[in-house]
Structure formats: structure tokens, C-alpha cells
């Protein structure tokens, strides 16, 4: 491996969080951006080809060393690390709305979901998946919510553009209904 690739490996190991390509490039002021990219590619192929338990994954606009999924069960069984709790359906719905409509007020979330969102927003804020990004101009200046880098990391997204576009969803909507209807298993009496 080139010295630059080794340097990137060390930096990625030192950080638990995804490291942006800019931060990686700043490690060696003499290195040209292309050589950083090349070193990163070299490093990734090393982990992909070699027999390694970890790999380098792109997430939240950066790169991160993660364990390979096939070892998760054993690691968890040995209580070395544990997987985070899954989010509830209500929390996921709220996150989906925030991701697509951000900045969005709590009232808008509640209007679309048809249920109150206060406690869910609170726990999402605590988990750092969303944040207050401003205040709406509407009456009472309600808080506006948006997603955070931790949101991208949680959902293994490089950026928000990786989510399906809203118009893609709209196009998929009708066939999805028909497919669901056709495959519905238990028609009620």
C-alpha cells in the first residue's frame, strides 16, 4: 500500500464517524485530490480483496470503517457491541416526512400522519437524527425540523439525494396499490 493509503487507513480507524473526503485530503497537504481518491480506492480494494473482517463504506458524505455484516451476530452474541434499537414505525414515518419536506413544522407532520408527533420528535431530537433548523414565519413562529448527518449515517445514506425522488414515489403509487390488492392474502368476510 502507498504511504498515503496507509495514512487514510489510520485516519479512518482513528475516527468512529464518517470522515469527509475533504478531511482526508487535508491529512497530507502535499497530496493532490486525485491521489487522495486513488489512495482511497486502493485502500478499499485492499479490504474488498483481502480477507478482512472490516471494510470501508461510504456514508453521510464521507468514509467510514465498518465491520462486515456476516460477523455481526457473533459480535453481538459475545456482547462486544450491540446493534442499536430499531426505530418504531411512527418514528420512521416522522423521519421520512422530515427528510422529504424539510424544513417542516410539527403541525405539518401531524397533519399528514394524523397523529400527534410531539413525543416522537423529542426522542428523535435526543437521538440526534433530526434538529431544529429554524422557525417558520407562520403564526407563533413554530420550530422547523430537518435531518442531521447522523440521520444519513443511520440509514447508510451518502446524501439525501439517495432517497427515491418524490415523483418516483408518486409514479410508483398506483401500481403499488394494485399489487398490494392483488396479493392481499386474507379478504375479510
Amino acid at each position, binding site marked *: 500500500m502507498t504511504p498515503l493509503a496507509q495514512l487514510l487507513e489510520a485516519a479512518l480507524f482513528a475516527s468512529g464517524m464518517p470522515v469527509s473526503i475533504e478531511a482526508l485530503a487535508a491529512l497530507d497537504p502535499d497530496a493532490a485530490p486525485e491521489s487522495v481518491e486513488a489512495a482511497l480506492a486502493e485502500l478499499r480494494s485492499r479490504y474488498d480483496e483481502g480477507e478482512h473482517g472490516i471494510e470501508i463504506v461510504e456514508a453521510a458524505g464521507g468514509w467510514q470503517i465498518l465491520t462486515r455484516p456476516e460477523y455481526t451476530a457473533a459480535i453481538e452474541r459475545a456482547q462486544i457491541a450491540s446493534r442499536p434499537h430499531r426505530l418504531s414505525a411512527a418514528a420512521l414515518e416522522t423521519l421520512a416526512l422530515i427528510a422529504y419536506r424539510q424544513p417542516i413544522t410539527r403541525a405539518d407532520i401531524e397533519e399528514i400522519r394524523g397523529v400527534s408527533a410531539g413525543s416522537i420528535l423529542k426522542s428523535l431530537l435526543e437521538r440526534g437524527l433530526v434538529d431544529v433548523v429554524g422557525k417558520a414565519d407562520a403564526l407563533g413562529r413554530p420550530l422547523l425540523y430537518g435531518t442531521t448527518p447522523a440521520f444519513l449515517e443511520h440509514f447508510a445514506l451518502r446524501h439525501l439525494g439517495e432517497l427515491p425522488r418524490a415523483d418516483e414515489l408518486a409514479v410508483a403509487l398506483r401500481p403499488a*396499490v394494485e399489487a398490494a390488492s392483488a396479493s392481499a392474502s386474507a379478504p375479510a368476510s
Partner: protein
Amino acid sequence: MAADLVDVSDDPRDVRAPGLPREGDDAPPASFVVELAHFSGPLDLLLTLLREEQIDIYDIPIARIAEQFLVRIRTLRLDEAAEYLEMAARLLRIKAQMLLPRRDGAEAWDDPRAELVRRLLEYQQVREVVDVLERRAEGRRNRFARTAPPAPERQASAGPLSVAMADLLAAIDRLLRATRGPDIHAVIPRALDVAGALAAARSLLARRARLRWRDLVRLDAEPWEILSVLLAVLELARLGECVLRQPLAFGAVEIIGLDAGPETLDGDSETAAAPVLSSHDPAPAYDTASAAA
């Protein structure tokens, strides 16, 4: 639907109005919670009904669905949750509107279901995104990042120390020299002899009208002796047998016997305020007594 992905601990009570009886319900609470976890809201329940009944979302037989919705929230004991009740009321209103006779110009007819359809479509979009998010989260959940401990507050660190052993020992030596142990005094209680000092001062005053402090106190006097003399002189002044004067600030104190002295009492302000002292007071000797000299 992704009911199995629900983390019940996250927010299972969201669909329930607050302050509702829970344990006291005649239905077993456990089954309630399980069923509750299946639906994240009235729209979710409605969408599920439509799917089960294989109903096109754009042409909902509102009377049938409204009825089923009511049955469902009753059996799931969701009928106390405000959001579900609101949806039930909405469905019944749409049902009533559908029963109204339409005018013949059918194209002018406003479908009362339109708003509901719009909301359902919107909600279905959300569910679709949730499926995507869920898949992605599950992929990420199965990988561990290195859990670095939270970075401590960055301090102005001068880096690792480089010190020779000799320097270190010299520093310790300097430190030990500089810091003496605390001065510990053994305080020996010594009774004052005010009565003796009083007698000595009286006899001296009987012979000489004017005394100086030094006449009463030997140069090598112990603190307890100085203090005894001080108290004795103050006592004499209180009794009116003498007057104390100090003509100059920080100057020598004069003790003038009143019996023998023709002096006027112009220096009265200098007279020490007389504390009431019992001459038998045993009191420890203080170093500070010498300050009175």
C-alpha cells in the same frame, strides 16, 4: 406492513389519548399493546383495511369501510384514542355526504372522498419512504463502526513530557525544601497573675507618681507576665488609681498615679476603655499580648 420492526419501547402509547385506563381494562392489556403496535395511526389502519378488502384507493366504498373501521377500533380498543375517533367521525361524515342526492350534472359533483383520498395517497407515500428507510437502516444496523470514546475537551496540551530523571529528582528536592511542615505550636495554658502585677504596680506607684511601661515589665518578661501587667494597669485605670497617657502615637505609655500626681486629666481620651476583668481569670497566654508593649 412492518409491524415486526416496531420498537415498542420507542413510543407505543402515541395513539392513545393520555390518562386512559390501562391495567383496569377488561381486555388483557398485553394483547392490546401487541395490536396497537400494528398501527402507527388512523391512516395506517385505514390503509390496511383498504388493502385487506382489495379496494381501489380512488373508489372507496365509504359506507363499508366506515363500518369496518368502527368495528376494528372497537375490537382493538383504539376507540378511546382521539385520533382514531376523529377519523371515524370523518368517515361517517363522508358516508352521510355520499347519501345526499346528487344533481344530474354529475361533473359538477364534488366527491366528498377527495380529501380523504388525498391524505391517504400522501400517507402512502410516507409509508413507501419508510420501507426504503427501513431497508437501509437494517443494512447499517448490521455493521458496527468503531466506537471511539467521546473526544475529551481539547486542552492546551504541551504534548508528552520529556524530562530527565535527574531534573525530576531535583524538582522534588526543591519542592521539599520550599515547603516546610506547618508550624505547630504547643499551647501551654498558663494562669495570669493579675493580682500579683496589680500589687507590684501599686507599690511602684506609691513610690513614684509617674511610671513608664518598661518600669513595670522586665525586658525578658514572659508573655503571661506582660499580659498580667497589661490587665493590672487597665484595672488600675478603671479603678481610678491611675491615668494612662501616650503623648505620641506609638510612643511610650505613661502611667500616672492619681493619688500623688497633680496632673490634669486632659489625656483622658487615651484612657483605655476598661474591660471588666476578674483578676482570677485563668487565661492562656497569647503571643499577641506583646503587641501591647
